[in-house]
């Protein structure tokens, strides 16, 4: 006895799928409300609106207004203290046009079972991540992103786990698991293991990062494949955006994962019934949990679905990189502390330049960082008036302009310091900058390991070895090529290579610009920390090292 073993239900599901195959403008709120009510759920709606700081060219939206519809299946005999969420984003056009049907079929099946101990919330959200954010903020009574939403009329208790479905065709060849969430947060590894176990049990092909598993993991090709999968996960985690609707749940300590159906050119297809059985199995397992998932790792990297790299393996690699900075700082400290040997004949060197000479480059670098953070969004109207660009282009190009303008700074701050360029001066500045970078990278790696690691790999070698006594032109070029902006550019190209869709230079450049605009939007809409971290902390730190290179 399983889902849809009843032929009537199978017919109803096929009918639903056919009806939903037709494109719908906007979301059919009344129809959804009626459909859910007829299945015995308590249905509520929530309307929300948000004005983006600048138009989003990828999704072509600026002023977003929408409605979320959710139905609560009350557990028949349990107190209403815990809940599970199954969500299907309702996007315009053909993306994700089958998931809502599957959701409704599941709701109908679940309604007839008596073993539910937690309430199940079936959420259909509009405008994907923005809708999910509005719903979560309404559910938890917070308002961290400045969204306007109507308060939720119905609630179901503390949410223990969530699953997000994305299904664009009624038959699929494989299911893709998406784990990376906002700010690189990952759900408990148990959730990924649960999904993989069910896929194997039902004979469904499952993938991670869009790549299939290989069994020959001890050969060179297998190893390369696994390394590529892991690199993809690192890149996706580092960019800090939520790669599925589940990503926003993680912030509220709700374990969540996204399941995406992929229809490629294989002979063996799986139909919606099997997917339904898989999801039913997963939800039943989650229903039986006595406590939130916490037994397995929260910090891991997946080279494949059956193997993982835990934090105990990858953190020492990062630790060793950070130790380089600390050792360099210690070396500088010892050099600064050793008494000046030139003071033999009583001619003493001028005493240490004091805090003020170091303070000026630090303050100016940080002010540039603040300008990089605030000005692109605030000056977009002025930029659009004077230049023939759209708002999005104005924001991105302003950011790049401020970033490049920062490179001209050393020539100006030197004049401000009125010739205080002593040997001691740059050493003190480098000591401060090295310690600052070490602490910054450490804190970043704790929250988002991939971001911290990528920044460490590109920044540590050059910053540890930089001094004003090197050939300035060569090292200036190297420093610019290893700066945070170029790191993003390389990551874009590497990512495209890894997903087997390599791009040409001009396409890569356009992708890079869209990545920057997405980063700024993610920060404004969902509170992603990558853009403020790079603009307010990493970029000023890099500028301080740039100052040291041009110290005269």
């Amino acid at each position, binding site marked *: 006895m399983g889902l849809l073993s009843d032929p009537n239900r199978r017919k109803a599901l096929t009918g639903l799928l056919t009806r939903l195959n037709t494109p719908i403008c906007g979301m059919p709120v009344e129809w959804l409300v009626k459909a859910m009510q007829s299945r015995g759920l308590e249905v509520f709606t929530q309307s929300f609106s948000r004005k983006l700081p600048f138009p989003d060219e990828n999704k072509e939206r600026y002023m977003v207004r929408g409605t979320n519809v959710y139905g609560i299946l009350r557990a028949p005999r349990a107190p209403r203290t815990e809940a599970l969420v199954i969500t299907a984003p309702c996007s315009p056009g053909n993306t994700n046009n089958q998931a809502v049907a599957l959701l409704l079929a599941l709701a109908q099946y679940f309604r007839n079972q008596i073993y539910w101990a937690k309430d199940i919330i079936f959420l259909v959200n509009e405008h994907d991540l923005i809708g999910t954010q509005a719903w979560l903020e309404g559910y938890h009574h917070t308002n961290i992103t400045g969204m306007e939403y109507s308060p939720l009329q119905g609630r179901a208790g503390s949410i223990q786990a969530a699953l997000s479905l994305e299904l664009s065709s009624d038959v699929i060849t494989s299911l893709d698991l998406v784990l990376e969430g906002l700010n690189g947060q990952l759900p408990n590894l148990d959730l990924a293991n649960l999904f993989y176990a069910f896929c194997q049990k039902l004979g469904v092909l499952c993938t991670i990062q869009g790549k299939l598993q290989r069994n020959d993991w001890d050969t060179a090709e297998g190893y390369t494949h696994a390394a590529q999968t892991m690199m993809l996960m690192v890149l996706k985690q580092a960019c800090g955006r939520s790669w599925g609707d589940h990503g926003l749940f993680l912030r509220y300590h709700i374990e969540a994962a996204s399941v995406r159906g992929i229809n490629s050119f294989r002979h063996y297809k799986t139909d919606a019934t099997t997917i339904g059985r898989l999801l039913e199995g997963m939800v039943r397992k989650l229903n039986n949990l006595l406590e939130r998932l916490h037994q397995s790792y929260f910090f891991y990297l997946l080279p494949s679905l059956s193997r993982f790299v835990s934090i105990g393996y990858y953190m020492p690699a990062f630790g060793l990189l950070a130790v380089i900075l600390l050792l360099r700082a210690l070396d500088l400290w010892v050099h600064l502390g050793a008494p000046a040997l030139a003071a033999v004949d009583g001619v003493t060197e001028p005493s240490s330049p004091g805090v003020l000479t170091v303070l000026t480059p630090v303050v100016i670098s940080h002010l540039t960082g603040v300008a990089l953070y605030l000005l692109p969004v605030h000056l977009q109207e002025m930029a659009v008036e004077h230049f023939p660009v759209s708002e999005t282009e104005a924001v991105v190009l302003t950011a790049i302009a401020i970033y490049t303008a920062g490179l001209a700074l050393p020539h100006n701050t030197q004049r401000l310091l009125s010739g205080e360029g002593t040997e001691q001066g740059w050493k003190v500045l480098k000591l401060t900058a090295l*310690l600052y970078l070490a602490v910054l990278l450490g*804190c970043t790696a*704790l929250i988002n390991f991939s971001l911290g690691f990528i920044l460490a790999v590109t920044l540590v070698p050059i910053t540890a070895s930089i001094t004003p006594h090197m050939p300035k032109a060569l090292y200036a070029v190297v420093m610019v090529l290893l700066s945070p902006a170029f790191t993003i550019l390389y990551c874009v190209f590497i990512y495209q290579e890894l997903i087997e869709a390599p791009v040409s230079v001009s396409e890569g450049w356009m992708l890079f610009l869209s990545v920057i605009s997405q980063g700024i939007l993610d920060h404004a809409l969902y509170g992603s920390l990558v853009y403020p971290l790079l603009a307010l902390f990493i970029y000023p730190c890099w500028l301080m090292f740039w100052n040291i290179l041009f110290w005269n």
Partner: protein
Amino acid sequence: MAAPLTLLLIVAVTIRAVLFRSSLAELISARVEVVSPLNAWKRVVEGLALLDLGVSPYSGDVFHETPLMIYLFHFTVDYAEIVFIVSAYFVDCLSCFLKPLDRAKMFRKQKYALESDRYSADCLELLRSPKEMFYIPLKVAMFYLLNPFTILSCVAKSTCGLNNAIIALFIFCTLKGSALLSGILLALATYQSIYPLTLFAPALLFFLQRLYIPVNLRRSSFWFFTLQYAFMYVGSLVVITGLSFFLLGSWDFIPSVYGFIFSVPDLTPNIGLFWYFFAEMFEHFRLFFSCVFQINVFFYTIPLSIKLKEHPVFLIFMQIAIISIFKSYPTVGDVALYMAFLPAWSHLYRFLRNIFLVSCVLLACSALFPVLWHLWIYAGSANSNFYYAITLLFNFGQILLVADYFYAYLRREHHLTHGLYLKKKDGTEATLVLK
């Protein structure tokens, strides 16, 4: 000196004013490292609301400030921000002014010691000259006003700033030589939080030194002055406590304030050492461990006073540092108070051995506190052990800092009397070891 000081004051006011009006103020007042159940502004507002309703502010175990503090805020609650900024200024203005007082006395002492050949001949470079000490008041003011810990504490409107102001006033009156005022202010500081009780010993030693009374238990002059000072101190304490009783009409404040400080019932995480232990402990042993932890704060007074009886000003610094590390609900405002005094001992810099390690540890821990709090409370990926590890590391760094300064001080004293370049009996170079 006046111009840089004025510039410093203006910069400090600007920073605080900007932060008060920004959205960060809400965020900072909620952080556990900056406010504790004893000095949070939220609780002061709650107590004032209860007082306005006619109910005792101590009912409900929310409010733990002293009655005099309630009445101070009763009249100034609309100007609370100004009160806190002014109290911050109190501290550094006082530290500015107390430096010259200390200096004159110290130069006199140095001169006498030199003339009486008590200092050895080759330690001239260890002596402090007026020139190098000219900027110390400005540096002390800068260390206090521009210290991020002080700024955070002020913006969060934690009453720690007022406690610091009272202690600074007490130090000022002590150094000025007025025993009565010093006794009254010490009583006020003890009344606020009990731990400044340990500052009685250094203040007493300072006055004895000032009046040239030798610290000898068999001399009657010693006992006479001690009893005088103790009488002034205890008397003021009794008067202040009685006044509090009459202000509120009940003795409720004693279990709510002092009982709370000693028995540590609230186990909200903070930067201190108590909360984790007491959360793990069985009820059966709670009394025993409370006593052990509280004795730890008071215990160091006796050996330190014996060792530093010639140097009461340094003893005051050590005592304040020990109180801020080992008290039951420390916050970063307490840490800022003793850090402000570090420039006064800048001549000890050459003898400090661990200053790099200490600065790195304190800097890294200050940055890691909010990160691990986020990972524990919001992301759920860490647990209390991570946060307590950082707390332990932070306190370890502080203890290392205090111990390092103690070592440097003693070493300098040793060099002054025995010469800078020490030689063993057979003429080879010797090294100094602190046992």
